[in-house]
């Protein structure tokens, strides 16, 4: 009996499976549910309202999100006659999966036994995987055969040109400082208080705003803006598939937050991974997830403050301010590497 139990534990804690399912899907889903509640509550606080309240007044409307989820689950999934059925169904699934796959290339500890894949080019691999999912959003808009969907997809396509270069350059500046694409080396280089948010705030700012742009965070919620294009590329979706579409953006933001926590906020520092599964894998991943959750809370706070930029304004900001900022951050990283600060 104990043999079977050991085998099950061994399978569950096998690093690729553990990282993809638990750290990539289950915990981020829980965080996303919390963040959705937090976002609504924060927006309400700042805008002098109350927010979700009547479902469970004692825990400040915390069960409202569960109620919403139930509603999505039991809603009928309607597939219109005019859509291209195969991409219509596959595209949101692919976007969701590609949003969480990059977590495999992110190290949650410095011990080699707990790496799901070889980490020597992990920065490049995770960035490359993260930039794939918007293509499927465009595809779902195209497959919907609806003018709002197509316009939403095209807006997403415009935004890709705006944020992709910025976010990638900003993340690569960490590689410029350390001279390595290995995320473990990047985290180890940030020992003490040498976090890259302090050493290279320009790149951090560019990465932060780039992530907001890429996950339709609030000042840049352009591709799905309700007042202009109904729900953007997701106009024709309903039920659980629509919920999946909306969840995919938040999951992607969570993975991006984990990336920022690893690259700019020192990863598992100040904790040093010890021996065994708990001290060597579980605790450092919890440290990273807490940092990522705090980042998510800051992202969702912006919803309360900002309105929405127009598409041209967003592109303007991205090309005229963020791109030079990212280049400057990259240069700053190179300068720091030259001066030997690390």
């Amino acid at each position, binding site marked *: 009996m104990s043999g079977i139990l050991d085998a099950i534990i061994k399978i569950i804690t096998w690093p690729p499976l553990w990282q993809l399912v638990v750290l990539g899907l289950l915990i981020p889903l829980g965080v996303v549910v919390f963040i959705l509640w937090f976002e609504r509550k*924060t927006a*309400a*606080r*700042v*805008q*002098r*309202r*109350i927010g979700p*309240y009547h479902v469970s007044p004692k825990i400040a409307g915390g069960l409202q999100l569960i109620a919403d989820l139930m509603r999505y689950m039991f809603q009928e999934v309607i597939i219109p006659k005019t859509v291209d059925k195969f991409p219509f169904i596959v595209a949101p699934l692919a976007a969701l999966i590609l949003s969480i796959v990059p977590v495999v290339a992110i190290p949650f500890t410095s011990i080699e036994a707990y790496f799901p894949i070889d980490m020597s080019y992990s920065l490049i691999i995770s960035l490359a995987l993260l930039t794939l999912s918007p293509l499927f959003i465009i595809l779902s808009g195209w497959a919907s055969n609806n003018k709002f969907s197509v316009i939403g997809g095209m807006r997403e396509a415009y935004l890709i040109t705006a944020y992709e270069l910025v976010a990638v350059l900003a993340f690569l500046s960490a590689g410029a400082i350390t001279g390595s694409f290995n995320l473990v080396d990047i985290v180890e280089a940030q020992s003490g208080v040498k976090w890259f948010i302090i050493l290279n705030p320009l790149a951090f700012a560019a990465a932060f705003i780039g992530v907001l742009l890429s996950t339709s965070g609030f000042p840049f919620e352009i591709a799905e803006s309700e007042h202009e294009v109904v729900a953007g590329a997701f106009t024709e979706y309903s039920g659980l598939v629509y919920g999946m579409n909306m969840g995919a953006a938040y999951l992607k933001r969570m993975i991006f937050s984990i990336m920022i926590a690893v690259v700019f906020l020192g990863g598992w520092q100040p904790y040093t991974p010890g021996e065994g599964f708990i001290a060597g894998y579980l605790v450092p991943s919890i440290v990273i997830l807490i940092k990522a959750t705090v980042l998510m809370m800051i992202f969702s*706070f*912006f919803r*309360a*403050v*900002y309105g929405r930029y127009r598409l041209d304004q967003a592109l303007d900001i991205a090309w005229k*301010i963020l791109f030079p900022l990212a280049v400057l951050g990259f240069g700053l990283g190179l300068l720091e590497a030259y001066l030997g600060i690390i």
Partner: protein
Amino acid sequence: MPAKPVSKQVPSRGGIFSKFKGNIEAIAIGVKFFFNPQRFTLIYPKEYIKLKEGYRGFIVLRKDKCINCGSCARICPAAAMRLIRLPFTDPKTGKTRMKLWPVINYNRCIFCGYCVDVCPTEALYHVPYHDVVYETMDVMDLDLEEFQKEPEWDAEKLGLPVKYVVDEKMGLVKVRIKEEGEKQ
């Protein structure tokens, strides 16, 4: 002659630094409200707005003051007030006569208050609330007995009275009204 197309450009306001400053200010205001929320949502059944005297709410008849003139029914622009013929025994002489009494139909009433204004003996008056619920439309057509009672006000039983005052800094602010006997 068709209008000439003119290309207009919106002049950009300020440089990068003023935009940066504006963003920082906006976030600072957001943080201030996040830690010190000044909510003014009315949580309705638990709170209700206490309206002032003279508010044109539901209408009640004082039967002993009514002189059966019928002015209220005549002036009613929505034809909500109508007169019904009922026997009335004069307490002085002891004779029974048929008289016309006003009754109101809240399906039609627009709460304009003309009937209250026109009444020569002030037999009609407003109650300062309007949030009364009737179960069916038939019940909203009151008879003479119902018309003499003040309608049941559930919000007063369930909730606390509040009022909105205009604050110079905050705009509208919700203030709880202290009830009589309660400490100020």
